[in-house]
């Protein structure tokens, strides 16, 4: 199965043991987003102190790709500044859209999502959390 390249151990590990996950109510969540294709629901809670993301919590009832992508985002962006986060978000989105983007080193484990490029139907799964955070950071600017 070619899909093995996408569903690697690292991804499935995050699926099985998602990091920074806890049950979140809609009220607690900073954003609630849905995958329109499947109705999966994702709740994310962010705390920004100054320019730094100090807390990033999530809960996702979704597939392995969506769950792992959310978990890996939470792990890699907690403690990062807004600028650092934006850089990484864009890197991940570019990787999935075009295969290009920031280097392998910076991507680290996120490189696993390169495989999603070949599967247009799954792009939403892989990017849902990242786009939600991006929107939230952009809106945050206006405050």
């Amino acid at each position, binding site marked *: *199965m*070619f*899909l*093995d390249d996408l*569903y*690697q*151990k690292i991804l*499935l*590990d995050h699926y*099985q043991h998602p990091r920074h996950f806890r049950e979140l109510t809609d009220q607690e969540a900073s954003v609630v987003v849905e995958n329109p*294709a*499947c*109705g*999966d*629901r994702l709740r994310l809670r962010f705390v920004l102190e100054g320019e730094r993301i100090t807390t990033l919590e999530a809960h996702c*009832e*979704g*597939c*392995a*790709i*969506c769950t792992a992508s959310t978990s890996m985002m939470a792990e890699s962006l907690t403690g990062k500044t807004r600028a650092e986060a934006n850089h990484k978000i864009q890197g991940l989105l570019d990787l999935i859209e075009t295969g290009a983007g920031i280097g392998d080193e910076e991507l680290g484990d996120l490189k696993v999502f390169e495989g999603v490029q070949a*599967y247009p*139907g*799954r792009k939403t*799964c892989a990017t849902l959390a990242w786009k939600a955070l991006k929107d939230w950071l952009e809106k945050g600017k206006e405050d």
Partner: protein
Amino acid sequence: MSNPASPMVDWSDWRPTIDALRREFPILDRKVHGDKPLIYLDNAATAQKPKAVLEVLNRFYTESNANVHRGIHCLAEEATEAYEASRKTVASWLGAPSEKAIVFTRGTTEAINLVAHGWGNKFLKPGDRILVTEMEHHSNLIPWQMLARRTGAVLDWIPVTGDGVLDLSRLDEQLASTRMVSLTHMSNVLGTVNPVRDVVARAHAHGALVLVDAAQSAPHSLVDLNELDCDFLAFSGHKLMGPTGVGVLYGRPELLEAMDPFLGGGEMISKVTWQDATWADIPYKFEAGTPPIAEVIGLGAAVRFLQSLDWKVFHAYSDALTRYAIAQLESIDGLVVHGKAPDRGGAISFSIRDLHPHDLAHFLDQDGLAIRAGHMCAQPLIHQLGHSALTRASLYLYNLPEEVDALVRGILRVKEFFHRVLG
């Protein structure tokens, strides 16, 4: 893969018929992802098209293409005749009292919206009740939600039991002050075939009208208006081997006559002045603008194709294949099939412990298996079943037991893969 739990079925009597049928569908020879033969098990979403339909479409466009009803030239007359012949075909197929009772729409969804506007806006009053069921497709739920909001009517639901059948124990109570019951004939999630005739009789006794969503039942030739006795009925062409872009609303002529038109435009008028217009007779009153001409003609060909089949054989085969598929699927550890109605069709939805439908569907696709994962446009039902998504395999007349076997094999492989990697 031979599965010890599987019922022993001898398919050999059916085989020549099904093989002959398959030859009518060019797409069934398709290979996907390189060399994997397509195994199409997403028929409840849309059906494949036989050559007979494609040829009629192509012939129309290359020989008779013209706008209908208003032209006095050879092409316009051929087009109009073919268009109206489809209406006759559909009317007689359904057992409608008259061709005037057949309105062509874009699909089931538009047909239901048409009734919600043309009938609902005119006749519903605040406090009137609209009764649907807990197993409705969004297309038979949202139009009524919107109508309730427009008119102040109240929306209520017939509950669904754990087995996936309607709980009609409180029906008579629910029917008090109900003006419209709108229910699906066959669930696209649970496969359940509902006792429409019984619901209709009880609704009529309370003075309520009944709309039947036949999107899933019409493709299996289960619609006989004389038996169902409903007031409205809707279905889509694309699910019964016809083209996309076309569907049917049947309505009792006297109801259609009393209703307001829905869309305004060409075709649906009689006399137009600057400030006012009078409406054409039914069914034209509801067919505003250039209709989906080629699609209606293609739908006629699809219905004629269905009519040409020996349904004694195909119903028996479909039942056997559905039962076989359910048994095979349930032999998989951790897999639960949702919907245990004794009377049911081939839409089989299931969940598997620790395996999300999206992941499963994606892996199966790599094997050429086309199934569906998600909410199947029935979010409230799926949530009620305790899920946010399910996997659905839906069978049609041309599916084979080997395809079911391939599905089961595929699922087992995906389970093994997840097990292996997750340890």
